[in-house]
């Protein structure tokens, strides 16, 4: 009997190890993308004369691009703690939507405490990879993604702070598109298979473009823009194109 339990345990751990490693592998583009983005973040923050250890710690504990870029400007300008907290709330509120969507993707069998750790790693990119994972999402896969992403973000920041010029500017500029290309690779294949999704992707891009070009509206912060358009377009789509249960299992 004991032998039997032991062998089951082995099977489970082998399975979750391979799932974990698959997460690490799929997360590699994020590692390199983050390295480039956080490298420029490190250079920028150091240019504002912020404390080097504080900058690296910010990347390690916050793990969010837009929020951190906004924060270093405010901190250098001497903004108060409350202002800082409110800015972060607005810019990062989109994570609330992402975590809600993630909550529906996590396997029922996963113990609750995993959610507390997964929450920390739910960045735009990790989220994008996690929701595009076929089938139910296990914590092991998510941790694999985090294992690839977080070191990229933190070490890139540290490199930027220390050096300022390890990577040639040309390469850095080219790497700037890596994360966007990844998003494109995630949304295009489902859009190709499903007309509704294709229409929604096209409409979202068009609306986003209008928001950044129209007078007055273009002054809305990017954080608010993402929230407004996500809620609006997803709600309209949900009313007109409700998802069937069978269809959801497919995705």
């Amino acid at each position, binding site marked *: 009997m004991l032998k039997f339990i032991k062998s089951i345990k082995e099977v489970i751990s082998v399975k979750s190890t391979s799932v974990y490693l698959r997460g690490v592998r799929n997360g590699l*583009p994020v590692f390199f993308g983050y390295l480039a983005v956080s490298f420029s973040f490190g250079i920028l923050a150091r240019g504002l004369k912020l404390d080097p250890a*504080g900058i690296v*710690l*910010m990347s390690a*504990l916050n*793990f969010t691009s837009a929020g951190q870029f906004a*924060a270093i400007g405010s*901190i250098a300008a*001497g903004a108060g*703690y409350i202002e*800082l907290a409110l800015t*972060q*709330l607005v810019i*990062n509120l989109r*994570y*609330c939507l*992402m*975590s*809600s*969507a993630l*909550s529906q993707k996590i396997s029922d069998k996963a113990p*609750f405490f995993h959610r*507390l750790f*997964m*929450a*920390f790693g739910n960045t735009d990119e990790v989220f*994008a990879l996690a929701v595009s994972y076929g089938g139910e999402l296990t914590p092991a896969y998510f941790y694999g993604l985090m294992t690839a992403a977080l070191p990229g973000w933190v070490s890139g920041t540290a490199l930027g702070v220390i050096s300022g010029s390890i990577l040639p500017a*040309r390469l850095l*500029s*080219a*790497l*700037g*598109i890596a*994360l*966007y*290309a990844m*998003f*494109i*690779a*995630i*949304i295009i*294949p489902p*859009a*190709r298979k499903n007309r509704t999704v294709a229409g929604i*992707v096209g409409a*979202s*891009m068009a609306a*986003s*473009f209008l928001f950044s070009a129209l007078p007055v509206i273009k002054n809305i912060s990017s954080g608010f*823009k*993402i929230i407004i*358009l*996500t809620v609006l377009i*997803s709600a309209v*789509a*949900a009313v007109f*194109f*409700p*998802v069937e249960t069978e269809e*959801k299992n497919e995705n």
Partner: protein
Amino acid sequence: MKTNIYICVAVMAAVTYFIRALPLVAIRGRIKSRFFKSFLHYVPFVTLAVMVFPGVLSSTGGFISALIGFLVAVAVSLLGASLPIVSILSVISVFITELFI
């Protein structure tokens, strides 16, 4: 008032973690409402599409290289390439374009 960067970092981290953790803690089961299920199904596509465009056009050193990188990424994904391949080819196309500009 001079703020302490370590307190700033702690404040930011607390707010950001709270936003990320709240829905994961609050929504434990499967949502039954057809509307909310559909809504959350569409959220990733809309959020990512909004973040990609037009932001991608200012992600590199210049508009033209970014546009080419964007078009390459779309074309290669339409052809069914895997995620790392799309990312790498897009980066290479930007790099090559910028050599000529």
